[in-house]
């Protein structure tokens, strides 16, 4: 078991024949991802990486039975690509593209919800179910199979934390990079619900950052509904107010969205909150051993 994607997921890549799409599709194929085809408008009928190319997602779904899509379409067209996937029956849409206008993400997300699909991202590293399938851009070799679920707003920090978890002797069930933009398709709570029901996952690492209050909502959810141990780290404890720290959503506005506020809320919810990002791996191990 795992969440969202597994070895049986049939993946198509939107923006398949582009530079990014090609490079990362190759990486995914090497990891073992079942990529059944790709979509590039105007290149339908061609074969790329030994896989068929389609003009539309609808056609790709009809011909291949795909249920997951990985999007590398440039930012000006990415919201449209998300909506095309949602209206074509794709269940899990992973959008790697960064820099999509906020207004378009806002609209695309509502559209995805209407079609009862799941959108991960945008501007995220994607999803990986260790040793089964990689629907994203993370370095696959770090992720060894194990009992720890990982949810993170940040890309390289996800790799850092997964690496720590693996080095501690444990491993990852599924890791999901949800992105650090102001509006993201799937939040901590949505994924915690899935991890709660996933028998393979025995503990969860939650990596948040300054800005917004998704971590506080997650804390409220965990307090009442989540039975598995959670270790959390919030990046940006030393970030100054009013300065955007890279991610569009990583900004402390007024007095809200601070790391200390989020850390306190998670602690109150029974989460083991660490203030050093270097001890996440060992902390999960301790929790699972007890």
């Amino acid at each position: 078991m795992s969440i969202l994607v597994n070895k049986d997921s049939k993946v198509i890549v939107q923006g398949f024949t582009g530079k990014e799409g090609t490079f990362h599709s190759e990486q995914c194929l090497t990891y073992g991802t079942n990529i059944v085809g790709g979509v590039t408008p105007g290149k339908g009928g061609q074969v790329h990486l030994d896989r068929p190319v389609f003009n539309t997602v609808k056609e790709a779904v009809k011909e291949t039975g795909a249920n997951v899509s990985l999007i590398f379409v440039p930012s000006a067209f990415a919201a449209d690509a998300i909506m095309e996937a949602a209206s074509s029956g794709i269940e899990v849409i992973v959008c790697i593209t960064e820099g999509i206008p906020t207004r378009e993400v806002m609209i695309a997300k509502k559209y995805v919800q209407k079609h009862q699909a799941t959108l991960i991202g945008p501007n995220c590293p994607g999803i990986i179910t260790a040793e089964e399938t990689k629907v994203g851009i993370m370095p696959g070799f770090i992720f060894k199979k194990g009992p720890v679920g990982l949810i993170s707003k940040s890309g390289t920090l996800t790799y850092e934390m997964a690496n720590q978890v693996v080095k501690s002797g444990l491993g990852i069930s599924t890791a999901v990079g949800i992105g650090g933009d102001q509006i993201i398709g799937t939040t901590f709570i949505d994924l915690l619900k899935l991890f709660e029901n996933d028998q393979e996952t025995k503990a969860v690492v939650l990596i948040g950052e300054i800005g917004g209050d998704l971590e506080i909502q997650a804390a409220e959810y965990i307090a009442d509904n989540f039975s598995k141990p959670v270790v959390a780290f919030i990046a940006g404890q030393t970030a100054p107010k009013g300065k955007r720290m890279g991610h569009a959503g990583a900004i402390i506005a007024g007095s809200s969205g601070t790391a200390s506020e989020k850390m306190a809320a998670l602690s109150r919810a029974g989460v083991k909150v660490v203030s050093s990002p270097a001890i996440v791996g060992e902390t999960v191990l301790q929790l699972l051993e007890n």
Partner: protein
Amino acid sequence: MNIHEYQAKKILAQNGVKILDGVMAESLNGALKATEVLGGKSWVVKAQVHAGGRGKAGGIKLVNSVEELKEAVKNMLGMKLITHQTGPEGKEVKKVYIEKTVVIKQEFYLGIVLDRNLEMPVIIASTEGGIEIEKVAAESPEKIIKVAVDPLIGFQAHQARELAFGLGLNYEYIKDFIKFTGALYKTYSQNDASLVEINPLVLTTDGSFVALDAKMGFDDNALYRHNDILALRDLEEEEPAELEASRYGLNYVKLEGNVGCMVNGAGLAMSTMDIIKHEGGEPANFLDVGGVASAETVAKGFGLILKDPNVKAIFVNIFGGIVRCDRIANGIIEATRTTKVVIPVIVRLDGTNAEEAKSILNKIKIENIITAEDLGDGARKAVAAARGELS
């Protein structure tokens, strides 16, 4: 991206939002000409900087004669305006806006901003105009009225009425208020704004609504399709080092400490600052060289960090995913040669080809390059090096 008040007002006026006549000036002569264009006997002189709280800091002056105007403009141009939003170093005033005056009956607050929880724009209104809205929200939240606008449906008249009646407006003013709010929302949505704030919005004695001040910010991701707005960018309002970084595709924020940081990825960059603090040091900066760091970006990063004279040690923390660590190691060696880095550089490379990278660095034996095993080890060494306790 943020713009000046005079620029925001021009955009608002084009969209049907009522403003007062005004002219921007960069010199005393310009300001005097502005009074001739505008006519009248009294004006308001307003400092044009990207920061709120100008009034309290002496950045807004009512003048009742040309003599008073001269005095005010002379004082204002070139002054360092220090408000709660500029930081202690303040912002130099290079432009003033000369505006006509109006007789005010009542002041309000009206703003539009993205609500991240609702994932919709919200229009915020309050009878407490002219003061900081954050303060009103904290002290008397009942005085704040909010309506959320579904972007698929757009702003509706009943929502404007909800705001108007909430503000206690007399029925006779409602029509004009609906028009004003509608024009404001149109300006917000059509320009991909991230913020439109009218504080204060005033009801004049002749019964019309006028934007007395205006603040606008825009979604950087959407600027590619708004060349007219991109043209309004005032580079002098931006931090020189941050601006330089953005030209190289780097993301840099200067801080107060002495441990320089160079990291790939925003989350890891923030965490690196955090762990430096955790180990008893102070980070000198936030620097994200991007998920795909290269030898070139590393060299540019060194250049930026070394411009800060406070920096006593540099912590390079790269988790190689797609990017290979051996390439980064070669980039670091190259960069330290070309940019003459004399302070200790603590290098932690993990992920793809980390072992190869380590052997490259160990083989070359550059005196001030110190390798670290992991995040914790790197941070401890960097903090010690900045204190001069590690050679």
